[in-house]
């Protein structure tokens, strides 16, 4: 087996791993780096439960080979809260009950955080289209959109 040796950073920490070239970034995060926050809901890029950031852009971890990560900065849900403080998005998801089962939540938080970094004052419609690739089967999205919108407002207020 021609295993690959890859160096990258994950949530700011340097990591090094060996993987089968067929393994996806999602496989490696979950099975080799013990970061199981990103979920595999479909394996085809249709559900967004595996959303991670790669050099700042939100992608599906299931549609990226782990070998491609050489030198990249990867971000996952585990890196969203800093120093024990929950991120405004996390706080608002809890406050608004924007999760029921919670399987889509990590992907949605990663995607929503990327949205707010790019657009600090999105409309509800912009939130909905940005998150169209993150399927949620429980909530009907109502409370998710409200939580993202309120988190954005809070973040704007707190500069």
């Amino acid at each position, binding site marked *: 087996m021609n295993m690959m040796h890859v160096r990258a950073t994950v949530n700011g920490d340097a990591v090094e791993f060996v993987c089968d070239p067929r393994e996806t970034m999602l496989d490696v995060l979950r099975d080799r780096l013990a970061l*199981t926050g990103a979920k595999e809901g479909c*394996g*085809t890029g249709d559900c967004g439960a595996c959303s991670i950031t790669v050099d700042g852009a939100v992608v599906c971890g299931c549609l990226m080979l782990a070998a491609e990560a050489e030198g990249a900065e990867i971000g996952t849900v585990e890196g969203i809260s800093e120093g024990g403080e929950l991120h405004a998005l*996390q706080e608002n998801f809890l406050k608004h*009950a924007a999760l029921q089962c919670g399987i*889509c939540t990590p992907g949605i938080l990663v995607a929503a955080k990327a949205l707010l970094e790019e657009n600090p004052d999105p409309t509800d419609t912009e939130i909905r289209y940005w998150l*169209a690739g993150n399927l949620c*089967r429980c*909530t009907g*999205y109502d409370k998710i959109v409200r939580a993202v919108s309120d988190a954005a407002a809070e973040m704007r207020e707190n500069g």
Partner: protein
Amino acid sequence: MMALDETTAREFKVVGTRPVRPDGVDKVTGRARFGADAYAPGMLHGAVLRSPHAHARIVRIDASAAEAMPEVKAIVTQADFAEGLSGENRNVLENIMAGERALYDGHAVAAVAATTAFAARDALKRIEVEYEVLPHVTDVDEAMKEDAPVVRDGAADASVPDGMHPNVVRYHENGHGDVEAGFATADLVIEERFRTEAAHQGYIEPHACLAQLGPDGKGELWCCTQGHFVAGKICASLLGIDASQLRVTASEIGGGFGGKTTVFIEPVALALSRKANRPVKIVMSRAEVFRATGPTSSASMDVRIGMKKDGTITAGEGVFRLQGGAFPGAPMEFSAMCAFAPYDLENVRCIGWDVICNRPKQAAYRAPGSPMGAFAVESVIDELCNRLGLDPIEVRLKNAAREGTRAAFGPRYPRIGLVETLEAARAHAHYSAPLEPGQGRGVSCGFWFNHAGETAVSLALAEDGTVSLSVGTPDIGGSRASMCQMAAEALGISYDKIRTTVADTATLGYNDVSHGSRVTYASGLATIKAAEDTVDKLCARAAAEWGIDRDAVVWEDGHARPAGPNAGEFEPVSLARIASRMGRTGGPIVGHFEATPEGAGVSFATHLVDAEVDPETGATKVVRYTVVQDAGKAIHPSYVEGQFQGGAAQGIGWALNEEYIYGEDGRLQNPGFLDYRIPVASDLPMIDTVIVEVPNPGHPYGVRGVGETSICPPLAAIANAVSNAAGVRLCELPMSPPRILKALDAEADG
């Protein structure tokens, strides 16, 4: 049970508030462990070989090439499971691993366990299966025809009248009065045929489990399930081991909606583990979830309703033909029982047919059977209102079932909340808001029974005065929050002093599955009773301390107090104080409750929808949606609203775009989220909710279930809105753009 007047008079402190759920932080930080998030030392990866044929005899399975792979540690077929099973256990085994015949595209035929997931997948390719392809049928109406291929002979039960095709496996009829006489007095009678396609529960988490079973018959199973006790019971039967030797732990569950009330890969992983004597993990792919787990039934229905000019319904009749895959169990009786449940009818008759097809075995999906029946009946009522120029809410109010009404399914209703939902819908700003050109409004009612089931709860005090509550019903929608609230309410302590855990099967008495909207009702009732049992013990400790009778002590605001001046003068003593001394006053204090409570309250909902149809493309946009539903009592209103909104969203998907599409070859054409089109965020509007609270006298705090009723009205409400927008009645789901355009053309051609 507490009487109703006590319930309504009660002032709640914690119940009805919206605290942060106890599992919330884990779920927003990625810490929560779902089915696929478990690993074990020495773990093997399992994979399942599935039939590419809709119907085939399995002539021969040659696994020698796979067995020769050094990475492969076990291969199983049906021969590796218990023999001599009967009834539903036999059906479940046959469904999770085919025997002599593959009965649908995706039917499991064999499974392997290997050292890596890649090796397991490679091994599947080296298993040779010789199939003799047989004729198949996937459509319910086709399957009932005389010349239809026989899916499984001898599957019919005694209810089926003579002369039916062997694919017809169960028959049901309910109702009362004389429908023909009723139709004779109507001013207008409308009869229409309706069809719905199978919809999948569509939970985002594929089935996953980690199993370990030793040659000594002792095992551990970790899986995402709505009911680990039931999963354990079925697995033990299928593996031929003792139920108590298999400890099952429920992982966090990433959605179920009824689809995780049974087992699929769990017995397979256990069988592989037993053979390899190593832990085995199986995670389904999304394609496997679609091809081989339960969608709901598809349906073909005829409904006839007669109405007087003043809106009085004189008679209603429905025939509901449901296919539920290759095994009996399509919930046609619930279509028949629920379809007319919202109405007070003198004459009503419903017939259900359960039909088998070459499709995966249906699994429960949120109020199984009810949404399809409501689609047909509520569509005909809407058409009658249109043709008679009547207001759809007024007509429903005129005919609405109330306390004392004889339900179409037999009994007379106790106190119910249908009228309240209709009145709230009529008063809602949505109902009087003007419509834009191209838009239509739809109204529908819906009904579901709600369920209770076996329940056991244990509540233990810690010495610091905090509480550990163990329940046996997996948390599928925030129930740990509502359990903490009810325990806090009953104990008189604060919400954050309680931790609720879903206990494993070795720790607690047997619990029925988290289904039938039963958890807040049944585990909630058991939690309150366990808290009361705890309070009784706390009061006894205080009484002993004070040297007075137990009866002379009352519990108020988390403190034991003397019942009155005659009981003596003692300072109230807190739960924390008693707990801190419990080791020296009689030992640990644990309250518990075990029962099959029998006071579940039925519930009703009324939905309002505005939809817009593009007449050039047939595309539909849902522009406004309001859910009004009787919750009995909303323990945590945010999660009640969430259930309302989620049910509506799933209904929107089922109504507009979701469907199982089979090719001529009997293969599922769309086993993925790309072409099985569940609603995405940009498809939906905000979903407004109104919580009606008509307390259920069978629950101490008035709780009815809320999870399922919310999916009963949407199919009809949306169909009515689309039909009113398009100016043509849509009778087939999903109302996909090609279907709407075709209906518009047909209407234009006259």
